[in-house]
């Protein structure tokens, strides 16, 4: 297979001459490959960017629920223990941890400055909850808390970020879906272009068959042509897309890393796969189409 594929690139230029310069069909194939590669690379960039966003947002969301217990001094620690017990046995919670005084001070500092007399104030206890997976059943948890620790309030205030993450995953899925769609379309278009080139050259095929050419010889000429067209077309489209992405005006702030469309680090290697896929697609699409058309012509 590698050998056969390699022969395509180096191969028999003379056999190639037997197929007339297919002109428009060849241009069509190269252009299709280029446009599709361009779109693929953008879809890839989009997927990777949304992937980064989704990952980051998920991480931030993972530790944002808190339980706050406000109760008269005497009951505070008892209720806190009850809450901890409940949290420990609730599915969807990875861990729950009582905050230390220092941590609570840090959280309040923005509001009251650093010198707050924490001991003299009736401030509540805070419990940090790290969710796992989809998180716990919040409504059920609230009910249990209300029953066993009336002073406890479950603060799910970061929940609003969830739609963002779901949006990001959707975009990522959409990106992957687009790439698949684009690949499928490319294969279909190359198949059709190859078939139409073969049909347009029915006469050529008849002539070379009558003078003793084998099917494999004819197929080789077509496959070589279409594979090369697809390869160079896709290469061009990919390079163009990568340049566009590279020179895309990017926000200069630190968020650009996340939201920018550019590739990061080794991800720059991924788009290079696109022309290779295009060439392999073209190779097989043309080969299968050619053998089928030849069989039917016989």
């Amino acid at each position, binding site marked *: 297979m590698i050998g056969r594929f390699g022969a395509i690139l180096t191969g028999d230029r003379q*056999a190639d001459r037997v197929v*007339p310069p297919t002109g428009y069909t060849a241009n069509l194939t190269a252009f299709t490959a280029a446009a599709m590669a361009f779109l693929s690379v953008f879809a890839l960039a989009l997927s990777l960017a949304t992937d980064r966003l989704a990952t980051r947002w998920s991480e931030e969301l993972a530790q944002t629920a808190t339980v706050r217990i406000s109760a008269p001094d005497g009951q505070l620690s008892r209720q806190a223990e009850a809450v901890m017990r409940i949290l420990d046995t609730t599915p969807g919670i990875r861990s729950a941890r009582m905050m230390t005084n220092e941590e609570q001070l840090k959280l309040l500092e923005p509001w009251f400055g650093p010198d707050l007399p924490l001991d003299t104030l009736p401030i509540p206890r805070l419990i940090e909850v790290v969710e796992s997976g989809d998180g716990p059943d919040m409504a059920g948890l609230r009910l249990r808390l209300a029953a066993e620790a009336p002073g406890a309030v479950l603060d799910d205030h970061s929940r609003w970020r969830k739609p963002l993450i779901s949006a990001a995953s959707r975009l990522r899925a959409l990106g992957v879906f687009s790439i698949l769609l684009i690949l499928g379309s490319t294969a279909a278009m190359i198949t059709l272009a190859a078939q139409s080139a073969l049909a347009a050259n029915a006469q050529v095929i008849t002539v*070379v068959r*009558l*003078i003793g050419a*084998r*099917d494999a*010889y004819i197929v080789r000429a077509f496959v070589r042509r279409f594979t090369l067209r697809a390869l160079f077309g896709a290469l061009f489209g990919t390079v163009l897309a990568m340049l566009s992405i590279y020179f895309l005006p990017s926000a200069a702030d630190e968020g650009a890393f996340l939201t920018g469309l550019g590739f990061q680090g080794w991800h720059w290697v991924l788009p290079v796969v696109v022309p290779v896929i295009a060439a392999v697609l073209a190779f097989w699409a043309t080969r299968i189409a050619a053998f089928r058309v030849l069989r039917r012509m016989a």
Partner: protein
Amino acid sequence: MLELKKAAFDYAGKEILTDMSVTLAPGTFHFLTGPSGSGKTTFLKLCYQDLIPSSGTLHIFGKDVRAMDRDDVASVRQRIGVVHQDCQFLDHLTMSENILLPLQVTGHEVASKLRDMQELMVWTGLSDQMELLPPVLSGGERQRAALARAVIMSPELIIADEPTGNLDWDMAQRMLTLLIELNKMGKTILIATHDMNLIRMAKNQVAARVLRIRQRHLELAGAEL
């Protein structure tokens, strides 16, 4: 070389040829004649496996055509030179490339035959047309080029379908002379033609037999020609 036994052919039920039994021995010279639409081209297509008999048997070079796959057909065709009635070429290649094409597609060395080609071009009067593309050639020039392409591989069997239909009498004689020379070198020749003058002239020079298609039957024409 070529042997038909009770062979018949029909196009989707429309019977064209029936009950044909004939043998073409190696080195023989045959004409095939019959009115327009009688099935001459159809018979020749059977001979070079463009069609398969619908009944009976056809052996070529000792092989049964029914038992051949597409690659076998390709191999057999490399041993047959054919001048088709409509003289098809690859319109994007020059005449010289077209004439060398049979070597090309079968992976033969082209260089060794360049000399032969030059001679053929002179004989067929196409020396000036070698670098032209097929569509600009005149009808007669195409017919002569088709003959050149058919013989370039020095095939064992040469089949020609109306090879002089578009040629004036002088040129037709030249082409016949070429075929007679090839026959003397041992090639088997089969020519479909409606030109009785051509047949008469050939009969003066070689022991040519004439096959005639009459009412779907193939018969040997006698001395009446």
